[in-house]
């Protein structure tokens, strides 16, 4: 077969693969929009409560998804807030400080960790809760904190791996620039390597945010309930959108309830998009600050 024909076949195959991907995404989004858009209303989120009263926590929302939205946002913030510093530091350590053998061992451990099913992580979190309940304090129950820590554990490998890969892929010339000017290893990491790797680091964070927001298996075993209202503290039970969607879709009594589940799915998607946008803005702001601030 001639090289030109092979090129054309490869190009068509590549276009086909890209088209399948984009079509799949468009189909999912379209399906969700068609089914969920009619349900999108103030009532879906706040029920019969005035939005301002709900937002100011003056009145409880019983027939809307506002508590689930608040629970999901809290969950994502606490999980990412825990996993991000640990994951970044671990990734930087693996890329910059770890001796070769330790690096290989830890990289393998992180890969295995990434492959653990979320239900197993949920079970682990549940077991830890029972252990703490029996041996530390009998007031320890599944709660927002346990869920957030379990989710942080789940997304930690993504953050570690993307950080390590981003740091490892920086060119040697850039790595040597700051040391050649008299910078210590730490100064090189803080002032040069991390800012240079920032776009790739952000993709790891975005991936982790998405995973935290959508995971159901972990939270089912560690604290989420169908009705709890706005979480009162990190030690209380809470509601979350993925669980609300799962619960409503599997237990719905009539078609209008199912439509509410589609609406909630659309809201979850919008929250994820909002969080991705925030992560992107934070990246742009940090990169801009690093470039121009003197």
């Amino acid at each position, binding site marked *: 077969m001639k090289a030109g024909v092979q090129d054309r076949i490869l190009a068509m195959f590549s276009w086909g693969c890209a088209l399948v991907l984009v079509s799949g995404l468009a189909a999912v989004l379209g399906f969700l929009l068609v089914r969920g858009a009619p349900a999108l209303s103030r009532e879906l989120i706040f029920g019969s409560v005035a939005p301002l009263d709900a937002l100011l926590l003056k009145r409880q929302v019983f027939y809307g998804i506002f508590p689930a939205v608040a629970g999901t946002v809290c969950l994502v913030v606490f999980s990412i807030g825990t996993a991000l510093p640990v994951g970044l530091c671990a990734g930087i350590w693996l890329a910059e400080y770890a001796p070769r053998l330790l690096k290989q061992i830890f990289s393998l451990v992180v890969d295995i960790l990434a492959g653990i099913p979320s239900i197993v992580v949920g079970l682990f979190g549940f077991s830890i809760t029972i252990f703490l309940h029996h041996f530390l304090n009998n007031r320890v129950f599944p709660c927002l904190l346990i869920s957030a820590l379990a989710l942080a554990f789940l997304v930690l490998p993504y953050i570690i791996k993307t950080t390590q890969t981003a740091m490892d892929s920086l*060119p*040697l*010339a*850039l*790595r*040597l*620039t*700051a*040391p*050649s*000017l*008299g*910078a*210590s*290893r730490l*100064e090189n990491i803080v*002032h*040069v390597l991390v*800012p*240079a790797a920032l776009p790739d680091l952000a993709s790891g964070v975005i991936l982790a945010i998405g995973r935290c927001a959508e995971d159901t298996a972990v939270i089912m075993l560690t604290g989420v309930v169908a009705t709890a209202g706005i979480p009162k503290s990190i030690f209380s039970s809470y509601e979350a959108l993925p669980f609300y969607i799962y619960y409503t879709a599997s237990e719905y009594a009539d078609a209008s309830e199912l439509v509410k589940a589609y609406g909630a799915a659309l809201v979850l998607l919008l929250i994820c998009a909002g969080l991705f946008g925030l992560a992107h803005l934070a990246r742009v702001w940090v*990169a801009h600050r*690093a*470039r*121009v*601030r*003197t």
Partner: protein
Amino acid sequence: MSKMKDKVKVKVRQVAFHYGGHQVLKGVNTDIFAHCITSISGPSGQGKSSFLTVLNRLWESMDGARASGQVTIDFGQGFEDIYDRKMSLPWLRQQVGTVFQVPNPLPMGIFKNICFPLKLAGEKNKDHMRCQVEQALKDAFLWDEVKDRLQKDARLLSGGQQQRLCIARALVLNPQILLLDEPTSSLDETSVAVIEDLLLSLKRQCTIIMVTHYADQVRRIADHRFVLSKMQLKQVGDE
């Protein structure tokens, strides 16, 4: 000036260098003279860049690199062993600056790029920093081209401008020795001419050791010429 040119600045004795288990330099001995341009040429992969890293211990920041032997430099108070434990590594690298083959501006603005080594050296006076940045950019023939956009990302400059920025960044600390690793290999003829003029003007203030592949360039600007081949550095004749 002629007396200064006869003064030895760097003594290299029995230097060996290994990279990734492979020996690159073996028993290298040489003297490098002050306020001269010393060129090092030779086939690719013979260890020219590695030799430069031995002169400011930059190889210590490279995985899999190992060097032995003695390098002494006269920083003004007699010859000092740069591998002595008492030698401060940041100070050494501020005295022996490096410009790499590929221009590598840091991911920050033009002004901040030049300020960076000053901050590392502990400079805090912003007015003083501004003056030093301006002087370094003028020394590198870059001030007129960037004075109106000092806050812009340095990576947006052209290749030749980026390389002059890197030279300015190395010059801002007034190094006694400037190591250049094929500084013109990725540049067009005009930029090469500008950088050669710049190097000729710089040898008044520092000693320049330059790796280059271009025989014409060696003839044009080098005072002392070396060829690195078969793990050895050999002098080939002076201008």
